[in-house]
């Protein structure tokens, strides 16, 4: 089981990538920052970074305005 944004629980599966997690959660935002166990995962690694079981995944959506 993995935890997304300290809220949602997702069944873990072997070789599950960050992109798989985003797909499962239905994230469609184009500008996000993702961490796994508090470490940054860069965009180009979403398809290859394997999320370990019991991981904490955080997805931050970046919106215009400041």
């Amino acid at each position, binding site marked *: 089981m993995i935890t997304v*944004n300290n809220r949602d629980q997702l069944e873990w599966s072997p070789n599950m990538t960050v992109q798989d997690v985003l797909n499962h959660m239905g994230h469609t935002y184009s*500008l996000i*920052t993702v*961490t796994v166990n*508090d*470490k*940054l995962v*860069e965009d180009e690694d979403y398809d290859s970074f394997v999320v370990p079981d019991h991981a*904490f995944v*955080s997805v*931050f*959506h*970046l*919106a*215009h*305005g*400041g």
Partner: protein
Amino acid sequence: MSEMFSRNVPDSFNILKEVTVGIAGCGGIGSNVATSLTRSGVGSLIIADMDLVEITNLNRQHYFQDDIGKTKVDALSTHLHNINPDLKIITHFGKVTRRNYLDLFKNVDILIEAFDLAEEKKWLIEGWMKNNPTLPIIGGSGLSGTGKTELLKVQRSGQLTLCGDQESDMSEGLIAPRVIMVANMMAYETIFQILKDRKS
């Protein structure tokens, strides 16, 4: 202890006066974060922005009519020194870029991301996390429009803290209390993290 901070939270002044905070952008977020950090007793700020003050800024940013036409960093520096003359400020008038941000903010204890555009927020936040993996960065995302106050949140992971609703976009317009609320959430998170780290 300076009389100005005699009503601060006990023991906070001696910690905060030794801290340097970098602020990338001096608009709605940056100018208001800088103001609250100065009132809280943060000792040093490094502020960077490429813009001049325009009349359209005055609905939410910490500037005044007679600032119009001045650089934001100079106008803000003046206002911050009017609050605390002992504040140390380094100003950078110019664009914060992927090439210069590490040098501009090399001596800070914590960085505030206060850009307008989401694309710029992303490169700054992720660049900082890659290059300074032990130093906190606090960003703002979603402070526009007139959504419910309870939608505003603080999300943390490791060195990154993001404040705002993470939804509303500046195309919805910007109104002072919501922008300043998020700016002050960010300022408070800055204080919270500094005191938590230094006291522990």
